[in-house]
């Protein structure tokens, strides 16, 4: 098996699969630098005009700013609520706390389109379509599992006797959590916050339902652009998203792996 033909075939097959896995990324990035006004790949000439276009067209910049604004607020709200919930989940002995773990992770499993039409009905009724409040709350529900999972994992690895020691030394319960527990679980919290941001930044289906002409996120703009025209500005937008989310996910992974090394 070491160097036999079976192994060569296995490698060849896997290299093809790997190539196919990164094919979308390999297409989008060069395409964003094309000099033609069409989505023809491979590009024949190069220019940065689609980036200029992206940053000078108010529709794209407003969508980008909306996405960033919603994403940051979702990261903050989901991290606070998710960390509080994770503390309760790992410490409360009551049965209802245990059973709410599954409920809190449910938005990850239930098909988004099902959640989306329900939220749409609700927002329609209370005039929340296209509002910042609506986007942030709806995205926060979807982002909560991505905070709760890493923070719960961090808390399970945290030695609670450290907190007891702080209490013995006279710290208040809240003081012990703030000065001892939170710094210890910080990597989990940071990675949760980053994943919450990325979840919101990437979300399309719910956003398509609750958008309005006054508030659209970047993925919604992209969706509309793909169905409507062949303007390579969308490739520039896609490349910016790739670059941005890659940096964030690498940061989150780094934060988590640091936690593992400490333990």
């Amino acid at each position, binding site marked *: *098996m070491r160097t036999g033909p079976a192994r060569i075939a296995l490698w060849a097959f896997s290299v093809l699969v790997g190539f196919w896995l990164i094919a*979308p990324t390999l297409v989008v990035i060069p395409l964003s630098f094309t000099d033609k006004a069409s989505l023809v790949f491979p590009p024949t000439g190069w220019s940065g005009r689609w980036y200029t276009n992206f940053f000078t067209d108010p529709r794209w910049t407003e969508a980008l700013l909306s996405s960033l604004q919603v994403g940051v607020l979702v990261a903050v709200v989901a991290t606070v609520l998710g960390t509080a919930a994770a503390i309760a989940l790992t*410490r409360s002995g009551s049965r209802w706390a245990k059973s709410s773990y599954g409920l809190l992770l449910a938005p990850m499993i239930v098909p988004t389109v*099902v*959640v989306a039409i*329900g939220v749409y009905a609700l927002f329609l009724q209370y005039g929340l379509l296209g509002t910042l409040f609506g986007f942030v709350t709806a995205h926060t529900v979807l982002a909560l599992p991505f905070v709760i999972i890493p923070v719960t994992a961090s808390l399970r690895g945290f030695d609670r006797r450290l907190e007891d020691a702080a209490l013995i030394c006279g710290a*208040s319960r809240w003081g012990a959590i703030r000065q001892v527990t939170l710094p210890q679980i910080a990597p989990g919290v940071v990675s949760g916050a980053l994943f919450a941001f990325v979840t919101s930044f990437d979300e399309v289906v719910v956003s398509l339902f609750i958008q309005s002409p006054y508030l659209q996120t970047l993925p919604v703009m992209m969706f509309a652009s*793909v169905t409507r025209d062949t303007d390579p500005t969308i490739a520039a937008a896609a490349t910016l998203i*790739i670059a941005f989310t890659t940096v964030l*996910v690498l940061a989150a992974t780094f934060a988590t792996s640091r936690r593992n090394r400490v333990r």
Partner: protein
Amino acid sequence: MTALIEIAAPAAGRRPKDTGDRWGWLLLPALLLLAVLFLVPLGLMAWRSVTDPAPGAGNYSWFFTSDVALATLVRTLAVGAVVTLVTLVLSYPYAYLMTVVGARARVWLTLLVLLPFWTSLMVRTFAWVVLLQDSGVVNQLLGTVGMGPLQLIRTPTGVVIGMTQVLMPFMVLPLYAVMSGIDRRLLDAAQGMGARPATAFLRVFVPLSLPGVGAGALTVFITSLGFYVTPALLGSPDQALISQQIFTQVNGLLAWGRGGAMGVVLLAVTLVLLGLVGVVLRLTRTRGGVR
């Protein structure tokens, strides 16, 4: 709040006992948000499915007698099954290779699988639109090897290609987890007893890897049922999947009842399959064959 917590704190030196609900209240904000923006919406959808436009089970009897609606459900399940099968065929050798290579090659193979995880779904689907379009790269390549241009985009084939790429990690990772736990000396033992390598692989390794196949296949299948963006952009409107139908019913036709009924059916199918995952996981755990 601080004062409240201080009063609740036990006398110094005693380990607090975590009975009762000292910590439970920290769950309330998250649960409240979930109730208002998750449970209420799901309830609202279910309620509308039996009240809009008229009270009764009309929307459900429409669903189960309408050829179009049933065809959509069947098509969604069929596309899910094909996606699951293709994903398995591509992932099994890949995951197997991950278990036999050195540490450095494994890091690269893992990175390649994880890359789709953090590339936005919208971005990847857009990329497939570019790749699969009638004059796209894939068709150019097909042209150079003498196969005429194929209609890929706006067909179920395009949807399967796009969805498979998106769902690969959900198959490779559980497969790898199970395969890396298989004791390879069992293969040597089988060969020592006179089995040919291929026979040993098929009769020893493959059966032991089945829990990973089951977990991966169910995850991929369940996730594929809820896809909207990929079929909407890569598929054709008259070959719509259930998510697209729900979107059209609610957003285009304002048929809340019908859209709601389809949503309830989709949710029910998802939950039944999830229950199946639970059963599979419990079976493999009690058998204890893997780890």
